[in-house]
């Protein structure tokens, strides 16, 4: 009943996405000015980072990652050993998927007297992103969400539940966060809608595309420039025979320079037989991915792997990138991606090795039953039985 009411509604009580993005950019530029005026002033550096993170995530301005990296260096020049600098550098490293660096900064920050809660909060995110100590992370996330009841804590818990295969719980947690949301910023709303789209479109073993479509659509309605939501929605449109809609969803996203938009548009155009146009967009995607991988290898290794395993047409490059991602964070999803790519590349030995490692690392986790490692062995078993 609740699900139906939620899914039917198209109304939002949030600031128009276009206004929110203009305001974010305006405040972001001002926060840099304030930082340069008085870099040591309390809260100034943290505000710069927050604005750049929001810009990277929601405005699809990938240059924000470069600015974050440079910002970390500038802070280091000002006061390399201060716990505050180290905490911010840890957040930047985490955002760029440099998880060992993040852990190193956090350890140093902790030794330097950084507040325990600040260190713990970032460490939880790093552990979650790396698939490390997930039982402890889950306990902690549950405790924090129950205690604070805050939106962001519920959303982090929802994401973890999704990773652990607790799909219904994840869904409930996300929707509770939405129902209890009391702000007018569209960013958190768009993010949760996107997460719900991912949950029902990609994480569950049998995707419910109509349900995912609905959530992605809400994410785009909240924030029209949300490129990730556009790309995922376009994929569903494309998979369900709505090529025109997919193209219309992707065209506005091209201006962001996100190679994922070019790649998916190339796929749509190829399927429609518009090969010359498709080739142009595919080339833009390839050079875009390579530029990103050159600057932020760890942050984009999994995306690059997916591209090269698909229309990028270079299975070995895909495998190389997937393995880089797997070494950086051995999540179940990273294992699954590398395994699939290894099989696709004809690297059966590598695939078997990954399967064995994944079973050792994740075999006892509930979500493992949905993984291809189990499904493939079931298929093999069935085949043998037949």
């Amino acid at each position: 009943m609740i699900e139906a009411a939620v899914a039917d509604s198209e109304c939002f009580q949030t600031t128009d996405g276009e206004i929110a993005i203009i305001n974010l950019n305006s405040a972001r530029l001002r926060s840099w000015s304030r930082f340069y005026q008085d870099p040591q002033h309390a809260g100034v550096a943290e505000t710069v980072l927050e604005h750049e993170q929001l810009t990277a995530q929601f405005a699809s301005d990938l240059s924000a990652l470069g600015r974050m990296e440079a910002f970390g260096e500038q802070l280091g020049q000002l006061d390399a050993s201060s716990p505050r600098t180290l905490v911010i550098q840890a957040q930047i490293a985490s955002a760029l998927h440099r998880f060992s660096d993040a852990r190193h900064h956090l350890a140093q920050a902790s030794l330097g007297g950084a507040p325990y809660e600040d260190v713990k909060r970032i460490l939880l995110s790093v552990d979650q992103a790396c698939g490390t100590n997930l039982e402890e992370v889950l306990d902690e996330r549950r405790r924090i969400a129950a205690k604070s009841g805050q939106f962001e804590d519920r959303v982090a818990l929802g994401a973890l539940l999704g990773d652990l295969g607790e799909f219904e719980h994840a869904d409930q947690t996300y929707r509770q966060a939405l129902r209890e949301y009391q702000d007018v910023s569209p960013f958190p709303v768009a993010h949760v809608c996107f997460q719900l789209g991912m949950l029902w479109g990609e994480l569950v073993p049998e995707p419910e595309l109509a349900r995912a479509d609905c959530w992605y659509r809400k994410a785009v309605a909240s924030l029209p420039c949300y490129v990730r939501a556009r790309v995922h929605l376009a994929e569903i449109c494309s998979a369900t025979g709505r090529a025109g809609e997919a193209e219309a969803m992707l065209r506005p996203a091209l201006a962001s320079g996100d190679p994922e938009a070019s790649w998916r548009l190339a796929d749509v155009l190829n399927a429609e037989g518009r090969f010359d146009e498709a080739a142009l967009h595919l080339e833009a995607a390839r050079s875009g991915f390579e530029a990103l991988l050159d600057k932020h290898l760890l942050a984009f290794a999994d995306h690059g792997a997916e591209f090269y395993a698909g229309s990028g047409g270079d299975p070995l490059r895909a495998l190389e990138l997937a393995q880089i991602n797997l070494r950086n964070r051995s999540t179940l999803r990273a294992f699954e991606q590398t395994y699939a790519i290894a099989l696709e590349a004809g690297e059966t030995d590598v695939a078997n090795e990954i399967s064995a490692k994944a079973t050792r690392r994740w075999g006892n986790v509930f979500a493992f039953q949905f993984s291809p490692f189990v499904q493939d062995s079931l298929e093999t078993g069935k085949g043998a039985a037949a």
Partner: protein
Amino acid sequence: MSDHIDGPRQIGDPSADLTDLFAFTSPENPARTVLAANVFPTCGVDAIFSNAINHSIVVRRAKVAGIGDATKFETADPEIRFSCRFDGLERGAADGKPIQRGTCTMPDGQTLRFVVGDEKGAATPDGTFRVYAGMRSDPFILAWIFTGGGMRKFQNLLLNDNVLCIVVEFDTLRVLDPGKGSLFAVIAETIPIPRPGGFVGHEPPRMDWVGRPEQTNVRLNNSGLKDVDDLRDLWNQQTPFAIDEKVRPLFLQRLKDSLANYDMRDGRQDWTPTALAANAQMFVDDFMLVDVAKPITDTSHLEIEKSTLNGKAYQTGGGRTVDSNVIDILLTWIVNHDRESLEGGTTKATKPGTKNFPYFATPNLDMQTVAETVELKATPDKVWELIGQFGAAYWHPLIAEIRLTGTGPGQLRTIETIDGKQIIERLDVVDDPSRFYRYANIAGLPVSNYTGMLSVKPNGAGSSVEWRAQFLPNGPGALIAKTIVSTLFKTGLDSLKSRF
């Protein structure tokens, strides 16, 4: 800060965050009253009002219901409410900037449409009401740093900041009918606009509200109180003029604790326990008092409350003008009970208010950035050896002579350029191991608030030199100022190529 960034929910969408409320007699026409509310602290130069929020300024009749230690101000219905809502964006004309329109609903139900940023504002046909909404320079002065136990003078922390400003001006006699009583209580609030069927959130809560300046960030959230909960978000969700009786004791106790702490910030107790309790009781009823029959000046803020607490009849209209230095007035009152005037590091806002509608100064320009780099084959140490001395920049081909005053951070260098111009700069920070220094321009460039940084970093076997500056253009405009600074940097850095 007055009410700037005073709770986690305001931080979510800063355009819902009320920074300040003003109530004063129009400098243009003493028969008219001006009410103004600002939102979106530190908003930059392109900020726009949220279209999901109802911005209201609410006035109620007030009366003095007790004096001295029994001080009480009572307010009564009906409300006199001015509410502004803003539309989504319209595509702009030639300059491509989007246009935003808004609607102000007046207490008598009239609605007035206006264009955001139109300095002339919009007026009702009978001239009773006039409205402006748009970006202005933040007139707030916060020139103190509050540490756990003390206060330190500082530069204005809101220097060059802008805010989004809503100004409502009206005919005092027609709208307030002061013949029935000239004392009024004013608040401003931001409330999400409910939309039937919306699935996000539940019953629309209040985002923020403000009465007297500094209820949240100074009085309720006192950094001198250890291990106490942050009550600001709970406060912001209260209904103005009707604080929930269940939580009122919580706020009252916090105010007593906080005011007692401020009283001792100068190491001297100036408040008796009963006077302090009366002061806390007064502050928990949070609204700005204004008497429209009496003079409202830059120094009359809080005079109504203070006189009443002192057992005397008030003399001024209280309220708050654009140029009122409310922080110093408040601190003087709560720290030493008006024994001696306290002044922060400055008593001037970025720009003073104006005598003409809309009374708030034009927005500040955005900071400009110039950054130039050069890559050199020499090691960073070798390069730093040449360029790392702030007082010895003779390596720069445009510099003819340098005179120095002082040493280390704070050192001044007076540069004579080869074409006879003089530039004065001050070293702020130098870090030789990191090969980095930061400095400020004092004079000689068409800029203000100039911060420059020179650094050398390793780059493979060689090095990379970055010279960066941020400043506000002064005089000739942003493009010319940027060109001058950029030329200075490029010429200097290019000259290094031939040396290494």
